[in-house]
Each structure stands twice: as C-alpha cells, then as structure tokens.
C-alpha cells in the first residue's frame, strides 16, 4: 500500500507537485501518464525516497518515509525503484550485476541464481549474460536494468519509463506480461510512468493523469474511455491529456503559427 498525503515538491522556484493525495492498494498496477515536465518522474522519486517532499508525507505499508532509521530500512526492503536513466556498472557482466543487486536485497542464493537464469531467458540475454554490460546494445542495457528491478522481488516496484530506451517488441511484450502477472497474482504493487498510452491499454488497472503538478484524472482505463465516449484508450488520453495537440498539428501542416 502506497499512501501520499498532501505532497508538495519543488526543486527550485516552481512547484512540481502540488498537494498530491494518493492511495495505491497492494496488488494494483498503476500507470502515471501526462505531458513532459509535469511531474511524473518527480512523483516516483518522492515515493522512492530519492526526494523528500517540502510538505506532506509518504507512507509505504503504513511506514512513513524517513521518519526513523528502522522504518526507512523496512521500506527500502519493500521498494525497488528503477529510474529512467539508471547507471549500470560498465565492467560487470549481466549475471554479476543481477547477482549483486539480488544479494543487496538479501535473497536466498539458490533462489536468486534460478531467478537470474529465468530473467535472462525472458529477455533473450542468456548468451550476453556473461558479457560485460558495456558491450550491450541500448536495448539490451535497458533489458538488464529492468531485470535488475525484477530480480529484487520487492513487493513495490516503481518503474520510470520502463518501456522507453530501445526495448524491442519482444522485450515490451515480456515486460507487459510479467508486470501484469506480478500485480494480479503475486499481489505486488507496480507504479510506472510512460508517455505512450497504447502500452497501458492491456495492463494498467488504474491510470493517473498528471498535469500542472496535480492529479487531474484518476480512473480505470474503462472509466477514461467512458468519459470521452471513445473505444480506444489512446484516443481517450489524446483528448484528455493532450487536447491541444491535434490543433497544433493542424496549424503546423497548414503553415500557421
């Protein structure tokens, strides 16, 4: 269970998040969407503990972030955050990297090694598992980064733009199915951001639309479709999130400014 109460966050002058109240129950897959620079990544960073909000609080399973050493450590055992641009160790092999991350989360060795093998198969990295990460393509680096988040087996996964960064169709398919399964059957809570609404169509149970630092819409995909009377989630989100975009396209194509 993730709970945010009146969270305000700003890096400098302009507030990025303004009074966010949110509750995400365990086992839910939530997609955060919205235009660039509206606070999607910041929201995840606040929940992940990278940032401390200037006001409000963040709770994970009833424990408040940064309230005490014990509660912070307990939260860290439950949460895994993968930023949109993680840093991977250049000289480690994929297997070494996954094993090191797994050991950091104090996972049983045999279970960890088995999980690593399954992840490498899932993302078509069996052969590359013994190569150093610096020799990977962009897509393979993205895959190993995603695998590192999955290998932790954390009950709460916070994934910033997991579908971006050169992931191939098989990688996208694998990730969609795995996340769906983790939320629906393994009771894991997944929050992810993406600028691509189509990807959410099949997997998200709930969609948050962030705009101007606030949650502007919080609904199921079905609810969003009904709001706009369209059959496609992508079309619904185009109307709800990017209402000016079609006008801008028309203006550009007609040579207007």
């Amino acid at each position, binding site marked *: 269970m993730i709970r945010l109460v009146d969270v305000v966050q700003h*890096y400098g002058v302009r507030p990025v998040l303004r009074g966010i109240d949110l509750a995400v129950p365990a086992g839910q897959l939530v997609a955060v969407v919205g235009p660039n620079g509206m606070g999607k990544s910041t929201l995840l960073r606040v929940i992940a503990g990278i940032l*401390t909000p200037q006001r409000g609080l963040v709770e994970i399973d009833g424990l408040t972030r940064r309230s005490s*050493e014990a509660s912070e*450590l307990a939260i860290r055992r439950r949460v895994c955050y993968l930023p949109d641009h993680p840093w991977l160790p250049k000289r480690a092999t994929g297997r070494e990297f996954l094993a090191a991350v797994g050991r950091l989360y104090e996972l049983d060795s045999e279970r960890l090694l088995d999980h690593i093998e399954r992840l490498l198969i899932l993302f078509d990295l069996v052969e590359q598992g013994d190569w150093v990460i610096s020799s990977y393509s962009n897509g393979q680096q993205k895959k190993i980064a995603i695998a590192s988040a999955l290998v932790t087996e954390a009950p709460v996964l916070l994934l910033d733009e997991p579908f971006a960064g050169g992931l191939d169709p098989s990688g996208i398919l694998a990730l969609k199915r795995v996340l769906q399964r983790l939320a629906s059957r393994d009771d894991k809570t997944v929050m992810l951001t993406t600028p691509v609404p189509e990807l959410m169509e099949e997997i998200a149970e709930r969609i948050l639309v962030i705009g101007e630092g606030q949650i502007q819409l919080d609904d199921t995909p079905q609810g969003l479709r009904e709001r706009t009377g369209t059959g496609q989630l992508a079309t619904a989100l185009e109307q709800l999130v990017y209402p000016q975009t079609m006008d801008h396209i028309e203006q550009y194509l007609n040579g207007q400014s």
Partner: protein
Amino acid sequence: MSATFNSLRRSLHAWLQPVLPPTWIIVLYAIAMLVWEAAAHGLTRAFDQGVDWREFNELVHRPRDMYLAIGLVLYGFYRVRAKHPWYMPEYAAWLALTSWRVGMRLPLGPVKIVPQDALVLLLAWLWTLDSSIFTPGHVVTLFTAPFVIAHLPPLGAAGATGRVYVVFMGLALAAWLTPTSLSGVPALVACYAVVMTGLSQSLRSAVAGNNCAATQFAVLLGQKEDRARARPLKLGYPYPQLAPEPPAALRDASGTSQVDGISMRDAALLSATLALWAFVIASFAPTPPDREITSLWMTIVLLMVAIAGRVAVYVVPFQPPISFLGRIVNGHWLIPGYDRVLLPAIYAGLPLTLFLLVPRGESGGVVWAAPVAIFVGWFITLGMRPTLRNWALTGNHRISTGASRADFIEI
C-alpha cells in the same frame, strides 16, 4: 677449519633467513653502500693534504648515516609487510586451508621482533659507532617505529581501532622524546607491546576473514593477480543509494552510502591523536616564534580540513531539497530538517575563532592552545550527531546520483 666455517655460515644463514629480505636486495644494498664508501675513501686519499678533516668527515658520514637510516626504516616495514598475511591475500587464503592456527609459527617468518632482529640492529649500531649524530636510540627507533606502524593497518582492519590510536599517540610521545635522548625508546617499547596484544586478533581476522581490506590494499599496491578478485562491484545508481542495508560482508562491495558513523570513543581518540601530533610537530621548530607560527598554521589548516570534510561527506551525496534560489524565492530561508547537518561545521568554527583570539608572544599560549582547539574542533566534526547513517536514512535531503560516473553507463 673451512668445513666448520661453512657449517657455521649455513647455520647463521638458516637462523637469519626468516627475517632477512631476499639475498639480491641485501647484495644490492651492500654494493650501493660499498660504492659510496669507496668513493668517500678515494676522495679522502685524493685530498690528503690541506683538507679540514672534521668538516670532510661530516660530509662523508652524514649521507652515509642517512643511507643506514633508510635501510633501517625499510627493514622495519619489510619485516611486517613481507610476513603478515593481511598484506598477502593469497598467503592468508592458503593459511586458512592449512592446519595453521593463531599462536603457531608463521611459515614465511615471524611478525614479532625476534633475536635475529636484535643482531641486525647490533650490526647497524656497530656501523654507526664513529658517527657524530647517530645514537643507539636512533637505531632502535628507526627500526621499531616503521615495524609498529606496519602493524597498524591489519590491526585496524581487525577492528582494534582503540589500539591503533593509542599506538599513534605513543609514537607521537616517542618522536617528542627521541631527539634529545634515549628516553623515546620506552614509549616505542610500549607501542610495540600494545601492537603485540592485538596480534592474535589481527592474524585471526586476516586469515579467517581473508578480509576485504587486505584485498583492497593489494590492489592499491598493484598486485595484478589479486585485482580481479579484489575489485568491489559498484552498482551505480540507484541501488547503493536506496538499497536495504546490505550484509556486513557486502557493505564495501555495494558501495552503499549507509556508512556507519564513527563511534564517540574513536572520535575522541582520533581527535586526541591529531592534537598530540600537532603539538609534537610544533615542538620540533627551533625557536619559540617558529613554534608559534607552526602551531598557528597547523591549527588553521587542520580545523579547515575538518570543517570542509564534514560538509563534503554529509552534503555532496545528500543535497538540499531545494535550490538556493528556491529558498530565497519561496521564503524558505531555513530548512530545519536539512540545515541541521551544517551545525557541526559551524560549531567546529568556534574553537578556531577562539584560538585566533589567543594572544601571541612570550607566554607560549598559542602553542598550548593549538592542541586544545584541534581536539575540540575535530571531536565536534567527527562525533556530533547525526551520524552519517542516520542522516542518510532520515535526513530531509535529496539523494544525488554520485560524483563520478567513470565506471558506469547511464542508459
């Protein structure tokens, strides 16, 4: 006769072998020494007439004394560096597989001072008999001090930090006393005794633990065969910054920022050691004004280093939640949850300010005030809460990605 001599030579060699460096090093050292002596002798003969012998003797023997001093220092370090398993991870790993136990003789040679060392020191002393500056105290000090110092890294790695600080203070005392007389030797003997009380602990830790510090040190020394095994795998961002507390064995390897804070006892001992050494170094200055100037500058530099270090360690990985401009524009002049981390640095500036107000002159007040200011300033910066661990976990900060991305790929 020849057979008896050979037998005696072999016995002596076998007896000395566990402590002496490899033969080629001894031969090289001896050749260099002989070349120097021959050159000095030749010069003496060439300028037989009209030379001030006393002055020439000084010229010849001072570099020769220096040569011997370097030899003694290197021998002191060598005796521990080449015999203690902490310095040789593969030796430690091999010992762990054998029936060797702490208390038994070490296969590569002892790490205690043994009668063979006394013979080496006796020979060195005989060599210096005609020196006007070398005393037996110098001979003992030049060997024992590096011998004791070389024991400190394994001792510290074994967790006996208290002993390490006590020895450093003892060495300061020895340094303070030695220039005038033999009186520094008892202080050195006491340091040696303290090191020996922790020897079992350091050997056990090095062999049983085959600990990471040893392997890391091996990397520093450039031992390529240990490099691959010793290099800790740093995980980049964000795992070390956000991961749950790793098991102790993994703490170094993970590069985690959750460093346990230094204990109050260690903070006090380290501060006292620095203060004592500053006092001793200042006492080496030849005149009272020189001592005053040395004390003044050492205090300023040491306290500035303490303040800058405290700020860097706490602020670089854990940055303010909002920018400086943001503070001004939004009226958040103070952010108590974050700014509390700067208090120790501010408090440490207090002893520095008070020290600068101490009147200079004949009273020698500055010389005595300097160690007090250094102790107080360092104790505040090292010991004052929050600990780094507490700050990392509960501070109102923004976690940064880390300063260097040389070993990482940002995707």
